């Protein structure tokens, strides 16, 4: 097995082209061996810091944080994890658990490829394929997207500058010409 650092672009591209074939496999070994301290999510006891990093990366690929124009208190990945953990329905919890594992192996079943090590273009291409594949990974990505949207659409600047939100409007005008 080749190490990730030596992996050629051709190999990565081949792997990406084969994602449909690869998504059926479930290899947990590399992640089960993690020794990093666990982040505490009551519904995801096996969730590791590396998993949080992956979720954050995925969320930022789906809808990138924009701390200049749309700052938020918490980062997107942490918010998404909080929402899925605290507010997710049993079905969403199940989609997250199954989808996360499937995603890890969807790029390559033995994890010789890491999503984080793909170029942004490759990441986009890979996600585009997964979003349209109608698999458990698609459901997983759509779940992340749902909460990414919530995070973005409830950010102060989006609410006030794009949705006309006012905390204390003090008026109602019912006949405003556009």
């Amino acid at each position, binding site marked *: 097995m080749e190490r990730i650092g030596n992996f050629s672009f051709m190999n990565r591209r081949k792997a990406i082209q084969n994602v449909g074939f690869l998504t059926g496999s479930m290899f947990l070994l590399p992640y089960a061996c993690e020794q990093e301290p666990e982040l505490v999510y009551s519904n995801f006891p096996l969730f590791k810091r590396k998993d949080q990093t992956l979720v954050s990366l995925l969320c930022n690929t789906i*809808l990138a944080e924009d701390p200049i124009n749309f700052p938020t208190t918490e980062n997107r990945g942490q918010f998404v994890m909080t929402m899925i953990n*605290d*507010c997710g329905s049993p079905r969403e919890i199940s989609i997250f658990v199954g989808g996360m594992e499937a995603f890890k192996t969807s790029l390559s079943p033995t994890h010789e490829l890491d999503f984080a090590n793909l170029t942004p273009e490759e990441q986009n291409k890979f996600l585009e394929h997964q979003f349209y594949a109608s698999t458990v990974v698609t459901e997983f990505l759509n779940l992340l997207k749902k909460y990414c949207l919530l995070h973005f659409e*409830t950010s102060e600047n989006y*609410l006030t500058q794009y*949705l006309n939100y006012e905390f204390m409007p003090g008026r*109602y005008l*019912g006949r405003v010409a*556009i």
Partner: protein
Amino acid sequence: MKMKSNTFDTIVVGAGMSGGWAAKEFSEQGFKTLLLERGPNVEHLKDYPTTNMKPWEFKHRGRLTSQEIKENPIASRCYAFREDAKHFFVKDKEHPYGQVKPFDWIRGYQVGGKSIMWARQVQRWSPFDFEGPARDGFAVDWPIRYEDLADWYTYVERFVGVSGNKDGLDVLPDGDFLKPWESNVVEDYFSQQMKKHYKDRHVIYGRCAHLTESKPIFVEQGRGLCMSRRICQRGCPLGGYFNANSTLIPWALKTGNLTLKPNSVVHSVLYDETEQKAVGVRVIDSETKKSEDFFAKVVFVTAATLNTNLILLNSKSNRFPNGLGNDHGLLGKHIAFHNYRATIHAEYDGFPEFTTQGAKPTSHYVPRFRNVYKQETDFLRGYAAGFGAQPVRETNREGFGDQLKSNLLKTKENGLWNVNSHMMGETLPKETNRVSLDADVKDAWGIPQLNIDVDYDENDEKMIQDFFEQFTEMFSKAGFTNIRTNDNQRRPGNDIHEMGGVRMGKDPKTSLLNKWNQLYNCKNVFVTDGACMTSTSTQNPSLTFMAISARAANFAISQMKKGEL
């Protein structure tokens, strides 16, 4: 010694808006008044922890956690039980009750009660509403008419502040109003269309308990103008809407005659067999669970409809083995509520060149038009409806990455308007709709658990179908498109308008309260909250509870001054 320190002129049970009114009237007129509340104190301004939080400051952006929903299947069905106001609602686990049939009992155990989170709609009842039972023969006749209450409506409106239009309708009498917020173009259009197509169907501004003008009385109360924040359920730091906490209770405390005692669960009303009247109440401290008796010449039971029933049912003596005043076994029966199951939605493309700005804390209102002047349908009574219209915002959420971001930033109103309406149907106060005490199960304070046996009936089902037919026709005549009706299957109780069980009536053989809200069989006990209602009409009932409470309190005061109570 203890008895002396625990003796007052009057005791008021329950510090919501009905009890708040009674406490205000008594203490304002010099009577030493004890106001008991089973929940903790909620002090205006100080105890509204989320009132200034912005949407992005909530950890879950306003949503409940799945654990909260799991632990509160009943409360979480209430529209206002959300991250920002959940602390004001009773949690299912802490206060269980029996459901003979499915019933959502939504409660607020704190000083202020549900007046903190209420919907603030305040339409007067009309003469037709008080005459309803007499006209169609279902339930007993009211012992009062609109004229008995008209001045008290005005009295209450002037104190709480009601924004409204003078509409000149006999089905919905005008009141003493502050100016309304603007209507939007589609609300105006629908109103005009209904005038054009019907003689008896009106679409008016929904009168609401918000301050849109300053007056000396509101300044004296320390309240400011409503700023249309529309997060009233959290408590308003401006006092822009009426709740008991900002208005009635501080006003009464200022007199020096009110003793407010939170964390006091009323177990029962104490009846003296020799004197043949009530002498006070038994209270269980909600924290220590110690029992203590308090005494007074007059007791007002305003613990909110079903808890008022519970307290009276639990007030047993040799004279009243089945509950206070309950010689005929009617206590706890004839419960009714409002049927909110039917909704209708549509679109309108007639005003693409207009939008709205800002916000308002009310919507429009369609007063009852069925069976008003004569019986014209195969169901009894009728329904009112809310009406709202909002510009449709279109946001493309397709894709991901830069494309998604770009799509989101192009959000815009698309020229369409969403229009919607919801039914507020009168249900019939049937004897079979009742509450009773559980013979075996007691709550954490040693009080029997309440069992609720309340359901819809065929009359309600027919009314829903009629609403769908009539509003589909009305929406079609107005040119609305994509009309969809929906039966949301809300359970009884979810309307939070439960009423009855201790009904007023002309005849002591068929009712419990006389026209002054005194128990026929125990004249120094008054019931003036929703429990006293003989029928429910279609309007949101809180304004009527308040007017009845103020009227009854002033009657009791006059009787006490004459030495007759």
